[in-house]
């Protein structure tokens, strides 16, 4: 089938492209647009590395076609930090508390954790583990990921109070 035109807003910027319908959204984001912060792991919806935010909900970008995101609003890990010199509190906490080793799973986990803290600003360890159950990490054993998300929740709570 001939290529189709798609127009997607990602991290507040508009991107366009011509894609075959079979092109996965993650491949469009990485290969066509060069936004390689989104990682691609298992390509069948198990590992969560390709997690992005589609119209305010986290989804697996390997289980969607780029044509399906035409007209949508996306956020990838590149859009998490507020500007070029500051990090998001989650990124700071992951850095400080060693919430990653190889970093392959990190983009997906950060976006999942962001969605978690929006819904549950003060989560229990159990709630964190349930939320990140769809994101596989083969390095850390998850301990420091959970600790980093807890730490970020506290930072964000403190920031809200002082605001």
């Amino acid at each position, binding site marked *: *089938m001939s290529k*189709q035109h798609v127009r997607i807003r990602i991290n507040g910027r508009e991107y366009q492209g011509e894609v*075959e*319908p*079979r092109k*996965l959204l993650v*491949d469009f984001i990485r290969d066509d647009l060069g936004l390689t912060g989104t990682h691609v792991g298992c*390509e*069948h*919806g198990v590992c*969560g590395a390709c*997690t992005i935010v*589609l119209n305010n*909900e*986290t*989804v*697996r970008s*390997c*289980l*969607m*076609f780029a*044509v*399906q995101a035409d007209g949508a609003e996306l956020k990838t890990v590149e859009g998490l930090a507020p500007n070029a010199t500051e990090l998001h509190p989650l990124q700071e906490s992951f850095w400080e508390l060693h919430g990653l080793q190889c970093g392959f799973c990190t983009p997906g986990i950060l976006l*999942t954790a962001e*969605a978690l803290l929006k819904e549950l600003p003060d989560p229990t360890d159990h709630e964190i*583990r*349930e*939320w990140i*159950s*769809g*994101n596989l990490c083969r390095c850390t054993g998850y301990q420091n990921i959970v600790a980093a998300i807890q730490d970020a929740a506290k930072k964000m709570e403190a920031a809200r109070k002082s605001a």
Partner: protein
Amino acid sequence: MKPAPFDYYEPRTVGETLTLLAQFNETGKLLAGGQSLVPMMNMRLARPAQVIDLNRLSELDYLKVEDGELRIGAMTRQRTLERSVVVREGWPLLQEATRYIGHVQIRNRGTVGGSLAHAFPSAELPVAMTTLNASFVLRSAQKERVVSAQEFFVDVMTTALDSEELLVEARVPRLPTGTGYSFQEVSRRHGDFALAGVAVLLALDTDSKISYARLAFTGPTPIRGAKAEAILLGQKSSETLFREAAQRATEGLEQDSDIHASAEYRRHVCGVLARRACAEAAARATPGASR
């Protein structure tokens, strides 16, 4: 891994969808949330020549209560069901079952209709819908019919849907007031496919006698525990009774063996879960609330 090429259709109305389905039912596939179909396409286990994407059908994305029934549009996301106050208050079994489906990212995209039409053996929604005595509205370009959950699930990944039919709505009857519920499953890791699962609904009269009982297990298709229901009805709720009902319900229960677990193991776990689920449902029931 990349899917094989296909022609992509993006209908905006159910009418348009049914026309496309009538044209391409032999070679095409309907795409709902894509959480099962797209992995199969990525691995080229599925190679549809046409993909008819249902995601622009906003008319099938709704939750409403009509004539006392919960009506769920087929393209309602599983996460919408999970978050709905109406579902939590009136049909909490559905909410509890939904929380076992995959992970948040899967439920954000996965749909109610997609899960039902896929009819995967360990899936939660088919078991919950069977227990709740739900029915499904199936529509083709020519006609519309309503099929009960029990008739709908025919075999492993096989339903009563004709090749030109689209599942458009699930209808879930209201439960007796004060009905207790429980959904339990065992999987190797959180969010994995269930090795065994069970859904239970129990209502109690003022003497804690069971006045309403429905039970279903995961299996090749959802399996009603009619034997257990017969044992439970009219009896006083007790641990001994639940043990007996669970045991009788799982005697000769049809289960499959595969790389993950033997049929014998699954039967055993179904029994254990049924006992626990009966106890939990009874504890959650309000005695004497239903008449």
